[in-house]
């Protein structure tokens, strides 16, 4: 009931959950060895910004468009091709449909 067989391997969610639980216990145990001098809402919890004033939290929130900026910038050439492909024009949508139709006619129809 729990073991999923793929013919070449298996998957048992209960074993995975057991491993996850043991890993969590280990993590929690190791955490216990840490220093217990942490005090909430004191100087020690404030960010040190080289003496600069801390901005309001909402101003520091990284917007979704800026996340993975490095990845999208390094893949700029790929994205420029994909953006050109996604024109939003209905006639282009139909063109892609016809291109695939023509290619498959050649591959399946002619062979």
């Amino acid at each position, binding site marked *: 009931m729990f073991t999923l067989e793929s013919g070449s*391997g298996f998957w048992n*969610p209960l074993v995975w959950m057991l491993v996850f639980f043991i890993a969590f216990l280990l993590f929690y145990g190791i955490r216990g060895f840490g220093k217990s001098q942490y005090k909430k809402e004191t100087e020690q919890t404030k960010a040190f910004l080289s003496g600069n004033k801390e901005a*309001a939290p909402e101003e520091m929130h990284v*917007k979704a*468009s800026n996340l993975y900026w490095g990845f999208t910038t390094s893949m700029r050439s790929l994205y420029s091709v*994909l953006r050109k492909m996604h024109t939003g024009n209905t006639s282009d*949508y139909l063109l892609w449909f016809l*291109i695939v139709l023509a290619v498959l006619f050649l591959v399946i129809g002619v062979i």
Partner: protein
Amino acid sequence: MTFLDALLFHSPALIIAIPLLSAFLMPLVSRIHGKLRNIFAVSMIGLTGCVIGVLATDVLANGPRVYIFGAQDIALPLVRILFEVDSISIFMAIITILLAFIAVIYSWSFMNHQDGLDKYYTLFLLLLTSALGMELTGDVFNFFVFLEISCITSCALIAFWIDEGEALEAAFKYIVISSVGALFVLFAVGILYAQYNALNIATLANALQYSFLDKIVLVLFLVVLGMKAGLAPMHMWLPDAYGRAPPSVTLIIMSATLASFYGILRVVFTLYGNVLTTSIRFDLPLNTIVGWVLIALAIVSILIGVIMALIQSDFMRLIGYTAVAEVGYMFLAVGTGIAALGTPYATVALQGGIFHVLNDALDIGLLFLVAGAIYYVTKKRSLDDIGGLARNMKFTTIFFFIGLLAVAGMPPLNGFTSKFLIYESVYQLNPILSIIALLCSILLLAIFIKVLYAAFLGPQLPDLKDVKEAPRSMLLAMGCFAALAIIIGLFPNLFLDTLVKPAADALLNHAQYITTVVGGI
């Protein structure tokens, strides 16, 4: 004949008749009271679900069931409309009714303050009828008719928020693309009828010669239904439509999209099942060519889906691109199943692909409902304009987190179980394909971690300080999907053995489908 026997006998017709008649009754019921309209919609979809349940029990136990409209037994099957329900049909019908039921519960609150709800529910029920019809019919022309109904009703529902220009634009694109596609299907049906003087799938499958015209028909079905299923590079309508329709509508459009995917399975495995291993030129069997074509398109879909999703800031469009990638996973599995037909891992691949249909419906459906809940409380679509919602929307955040893990194929949720079968089987065909699929799944996780951070975590934004949790009916709908994602993840064999394996067997054992009709003449 007892009541239960009669119900079972007429169940294929009732599954279509109940939502169809309810759709036409809806404007009348709406005039009485708004609440009665909602109760009527939920109860009629629930009733259809019960009939599907009764039929599913019988089909899974006793094999395919045939229903002939206007006749007691199989007489003149060439001209009569005939429904043939086997395990794959009923599997798809279960998914469709599940999506519809949850969508209608969600609509209760989500669409509460909208005008024109009588039209909304009428179109909703008509779209449900068309999706169920596509899945149950045993006739290619009938399939075309239901496909057309789904095109028209989907278009009207996408444009439901008529005051938004983008919704109208998305609906226009959808109707153009779908109508052109449907015409090509009609062309394919015409070619088959001209050659074999039949429209019934089983009769056609029995007579198919794999002539040059049959090759053309195969290509037409593959391309049109692939486009309707959201296969790249013909996927562009999908983020537009999914992104602009109300999320409850997106769920039911998704069921029509999955019905198109089912159409490809039916065409390849049943209609062309007899000739699938036919050697064509260069000693290449047909299944190798068709399988690798589908695999190539699947890999393109997965790559384009995840790469484009990464740069989206509109939440619903982002999920739309993710849906394209998920469709790619299904086609990858089915392509492998066709290319390696006859091998043990081909069967596993097909099972993985079919299982992924269910998991995709649940996971993508859940994410759309979460996006809808955010839109409902904030009236914002862009991820750039929201943040810190976890503080006020705790349940929605939990449901999103479950959806995130499930769609990214993280254990122990349902997405992992089907992807596990897909990775393992595809690896045996070609390890590179499996690696690409796995890496793209990791990218999916990265995409939704971005959404988690941008929408739910971080500081509370000043204009969103007063937002409240989504209404109860919306939470209930999301909760149902989340619960199913966990249950399937923890007990995969329960669903695999009872639903998925019989569905895969029904496709592979096409002779049973054919003899149920042709053998009865």
